[in-house]
């Protein structure tokens, strides 16, 4: 059996170089003005997966992403770097998903890829910055999660030891497999695209993409089935339609304001019930939630 590693990744607008037209008047992101890129921390996650594959030749790296047709680009990007294949979760029914609905869809897709050993994702995406999708997916899969991973110290068929990068130092934890880890940007950057893999996989397309191609390469896809990127719809995932997209997303954006950062401060809380209670009260009293 191959050691199966599933990388969860997201195509995001490049918010690192935002111009004046980055936001629309209604406060939503103007995706047309920002180039779509591979979420940076997901690239760190991919590197972790690929470096496991360097050491364990029977490991298999599968990239899983949810998004519109064009998100297939990050599956190709992953294949150029050494991923074996990828699946695009795409359906109009997924539109408007918040982190809860997204992690629901992702967890169904991961289950479809059972048996798997490791699920790796970036800590958070640069568009939403929630850092919730990884942990929520692990919860739904009922597997252990290790967030803020910086380095995989050891790995065998049943166990993983990971160094976590936390605000005030590092922590070494171990876990049974399968597990989900989210990778911090302090982990090594992803390797470059590899010349021959790029030339090999550049024709990889989803069926939807193929329908829009001007050139007919039908024969090529018959000869090289690995070039066809599979798309999974809500139906393929046997998803409950109430848990998808807008209807599955309890998050509602009430208002968006432009803020100018003046102070940068943070409070450190322990995970005691008392501290969490205090935090909740603060958040409610300042109308951040509720």
């Amino acid at each position, binding site marked *: 059996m191959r050691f199966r590693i599933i990388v969860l990744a997201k195509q995001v607008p490049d918010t690192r170089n935002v111009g004046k037209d980055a936001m629309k008047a209604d406060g939503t992101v103007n995706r047309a003005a920002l180039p779509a890129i591979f979420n940076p921390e997901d690239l760190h996650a991919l590197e972790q997966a690929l470096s496991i594959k360097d050491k364990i030749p029977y490991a298999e790296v599968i990239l899983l992403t949810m998004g519109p047709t064009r998100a297939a680009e990050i599956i190709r990007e992953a294949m150029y770097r050494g991923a074996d294949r990828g699946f695009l979760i795409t359906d109009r029914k997924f539109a408007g998903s918040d982190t809860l609905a997204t992690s629901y869809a992702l967890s169904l897709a991961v289950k479809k890829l059972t048996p798997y050993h490791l699920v790796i994702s970036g800590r958070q995406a640069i568009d939403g910055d929630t850092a919730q999708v990884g942990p929520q997916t692990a919860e739904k899969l009922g597997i252990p999660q290790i967030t803020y991973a910086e380095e995989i110290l050891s790995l065998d068929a049943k166990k993983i030891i990971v160094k976590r990068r936390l605000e005030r130092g590092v922590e070494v934890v171990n876990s049974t497999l399968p597990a989900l880890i989210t990778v911090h940007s302090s982990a090594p950057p992803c390797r*470059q695209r*590899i010349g*021959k893999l*790029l*030339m090999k996989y*550049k024709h990889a397309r989803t069926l939807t993409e193929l329908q829009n191609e001007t050139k007919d*390469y039908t024969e090529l896809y018959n000869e*090289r089935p690995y070039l066809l990127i599979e798309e999974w719809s809500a139906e393929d995932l046997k998803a409950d339609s109430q848990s998808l997209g807008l209807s599955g997303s309890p998050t509602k954006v009430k208002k968006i304001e432009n803020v100018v950062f003046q102070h940068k401060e943070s409070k450190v809380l322990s995970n005691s019930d008392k501290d969490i209670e205090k935090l909740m009260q603060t958040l409610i009293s300042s109308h951040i939630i509720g």
Partner: protein
Amino acid sequence: MENFYTDNPHLRFHLTHPLMSRIVKLKESDYSQKDKYDFAPLDYEDAIDSYDKIMEIIGEISGEIIAPNAESVDKEGPQLVNNEVRYARGTRENHDALVKAGLVGFSLPREYDGLNMPHVPYVMSGEIVSRADAGFANIWGLQDCAETILEFASDELKAEFLPRFNKGDTAAMDLTEPDAGSDLQAVQLKATYDNHKHCWLLDGVKRFITNGDADISLVLARSEEGTTDARGLSLFVYDRKDKAVSVRRIENKLGIKGSPTCELVFKQAPAKLIGDTKLGLIKYVMSLMNSARLGVGSQSVGLAEAAYREAYKYATEREQFGKSIIKYPAVYEMLTNMKVKIDGMRSLLYETARYVDLYKCYNSASRERKLEADERQEAKHYQRLADMFTPLLKLYSSECCNQIAYDAIQIFGGTGYMKDFPIERIYRDARITTIYEGTSQLQVVAAIRYVGNGGYLSVMRERAGLRVNPELEYLRSSLEKMTEQFARTVEKINEFSDNEYFDFHSRRLVEMAANILIGYLLLFDANRSDEYTMSADIFIRKGRAENVAAVSFINNCHPKEVNDYKL
């Protein structure tokens, strides 16, 4: 994300030149490898798309890794540790990135794990890497040695050495000796055949060897005892694993400090013969040198591009007397002249690369099948053009990159003289380009042959006859006049039948030819894209003025006046 390919649209312009379709078709043997290799191109568009994407990787590695490392590499330089060359940290990182991206063995055939890239994209990779760090470009560019092995070595040697390039083995060409610099016929390093060990053994000293401690070295040595000229020299390949060469020192240089320049001592070093004995210098090294000169051309264009970008940026940001200095005629003229020269030298670079591609493609096809008569003629035609254009390229681009780096520092003023900006490193790095792989003076010697035998003139006249868009006709007609002025000047010098007089004016004549030939190239670039009209116009007008000045000097300097210059 810095990408030195995608931020420079001129590169894609040259990568998609109309002549590429013939080059790619030949290089890919009519796209016959697609069933054998899953990364081989399916057709012309597919091939160009692959080149484009590979260039993007080179551009990204150059912009994100090599360029940011350049300063520390320049400071740290390579070290000699236990008789071994240890690259600077940044150099190792650069090399690793390119190896891991699977890009070494760039132009080797796929059967040797190469990428089967033509010269045009290979030369382009050299330009891009040089813009990031010209010193590192030497380590990247020495994969030229693989081509010499491919063209001339036995199948056995090819199988032994060629696949090692893609795995990251580095290479060196060991030619120069203390008493054999420009004059390589004087090489003395001795090669003797050992009948017991059944191999050649090398003994002697090599000096100024770039990347001297490489994994694979091509060594020029005297295999014929008692000879003193080129006919006694053969070419060998030495494997570093044999540990029979010691590095005596690493030179402390003005520039390209990241590239280790070594003095090597060979002691009974086992080596394998490439091709036949006695053809080492006459055939193999001559071919290797032509590739190396193309390499210096690409290095010069890359350096010039880097210098121009630095100067342009500074000139727009720096304010004096209440406005940015780029607003002053003295400054914008310098910058525009830089840009125009770069467009010209780049056009010459890729034109030369295309000629090299075409004749080499035919040569390699001839190893597999008998060429048709018209193909043989084409091969000969393009080889001649490559021979004509290579010294012109080396001369013109290296001299221009020095002028451009000089002017770039001028634009920075006092700030440019400090170590705070990359421009002072670029200036130092540029200085070597007119010297190594044949000095400018030797390029003139190689090029003047085609002034004397009418080679350049026939190319000019053929181009004068090509049609261009009506709005560019005035430039074509201007070049036609320059062509005839050149013809008259050469004729006039020849009337004296005085070799020394001809030699005395040779550089002027070669530079006149360069002004005209590059003028034609820019004219055809402008014909293909409006982007180049301004450069063609300025280049041709300036070239015309320079040629008038040269003619005026020549007309006023008769054979007897040459004596005034003798010291």
